[in-house]
């Protein structure tokens, strides 16, 4: 896509390709580099009909890169916040109304995740039959979640998210 890799100062990056303001919608910022597409997939933003801008490898500070997503006329549900937290634990979500930030929220991994991600144990009943998945947070950094049913501890990178592109 595009990026400010090594050439632009932070302010310029912001004013560069990502500048076009949106009237109503959502800006997901501070996504780890390379993870924006995955988040867009999980949120189903790659479907026809959405006006989306995905920025990859933008400069966040002098030394830190980030991805960013802007989407028009779309707001997130609580469950979507939880899903984003699993991929981008430090992301911030800005709700834009009338060109202004209406609300700014930092995502957090909740204590309990219901029906958001699959237990990484292939022999778990929740992966074998139609059983609602339920995971408890053991640690946020690094992310470790334990299954309500089988007690298996899944590491963040092993978790598969429910929903489009997640399976």
């Amino acid at each position: 896509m595009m990026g400010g890799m090594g050439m632009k100062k932070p302010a310029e990056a912001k004013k560069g390709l990502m500048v076009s303001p949106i009237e109503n919608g959502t800006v997901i910022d501070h996504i780890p580099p390379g993870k924006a597409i995955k988040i867009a997939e999980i949120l189903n933003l790659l479907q026809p009909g959405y006006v989306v801008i995905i920025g990859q490898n933008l400069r966040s500070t002098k030394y830190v890169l980030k991805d960013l997503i802007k989407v028009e006329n779309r707001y997130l549900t609580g469950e979507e916040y939880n899903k984003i937290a699993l991929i981008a634990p430090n992301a911030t979500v800005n709700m834009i109304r009338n060109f202004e930030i209406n609300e700014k929220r930092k995502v957090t991994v909740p204590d309990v995740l219901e029906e958001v991600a699959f237990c990484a144990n292939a022999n778990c009943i929740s992966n074998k039959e139609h059983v609602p998945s339920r995971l408890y947070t053991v640690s946020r950094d690094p992310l470790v979640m334990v299954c309500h049913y089988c007690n298996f501890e899944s590491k963040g990178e092993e978790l598969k998210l429910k929903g489009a592109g997640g399976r």
Partner: protein
Amino acid sequence: MEFVNRDIVSIKDFTRPELEYIFEKAKEIEEKGYSRSTLKGKRVGLLFYEPSTRTRMSFDTAAQTLGADTIWFAGVEGTSVMKGETLKDTIETVANYVDVIVMRHPFDGSARWAADVTTKRAKQGLKKVPIVNGGDGKNEHPTQTMLDLYSVQKTQGGIDGLEVALVGDLKYGRTTHSLSYALSMFDTRIDYVAPEALQIPAHVVSFLKQKGIAQTKYSRIEDVIETADVIYMTRIQKERFPDENEYNKVKGVFRIDKSLLSRAKPTMRLMHPLPRVDEIAVDADDDQRSYYFQQAGNGVPVRATLLALIMGAVE
């Protein structure tokens, strides 16, 4: 302490006082004898998706000696499961017929799910049917752990202060993981005797370390034979080794026979979850220290006690 309608899914759901209470009641049952009026008119469903004959017979005996009826299947051949019935549907159906469901199932976490299903039923105003986990895949087998611990207490007169050696496949064996957790509720020291590749997993060690349990790894039974109060043997499976040679070497080392056993304290008791293959030589069976068959027998008072407690027939 509340046992009525309680699910028995994981050993981790129990506290030390609760385990001690269960053992006290089991001892009482053993001493006073079983009464068939205890569970008269009650019915226990034994849903065994895997045949597991020993566990099923033990539960069946436990229920019947207290006067309960049992209905059961063992293996799914010819059942509605073969037609694709889900665990939830089977539980919802059988819960209409019985007061308790004992289940053994190949999937990890199946017992917790079944317990959730009958709890939800109870919230809708139907009677709660407690679930007893008779083994859910590689996950847990709490009544095995309870009878193991009961056997330790019964033979040693208590659990605090004991040195317990766990021998064999400590990496994949869920029995030794659960027993380690249970022993950590007491003031014990644990010896892990296993080939390097099959040593106890780090997560078990770190959990026990937090509880202040002294743990030592060994590579030979000889290192613990003279000091251990209990030696808990498990089978090492051939499939765990890349080649036959490697397996044969290990097989000879993690094996107890009569002459090795004679070096142990007279009060030491040798235990095994059974079935044993050749990790305990048959010539060891007659030694007073060999306890594995009586250990299996302890499953009956422990399971009978649990059934009576959760059905409210014993306070």
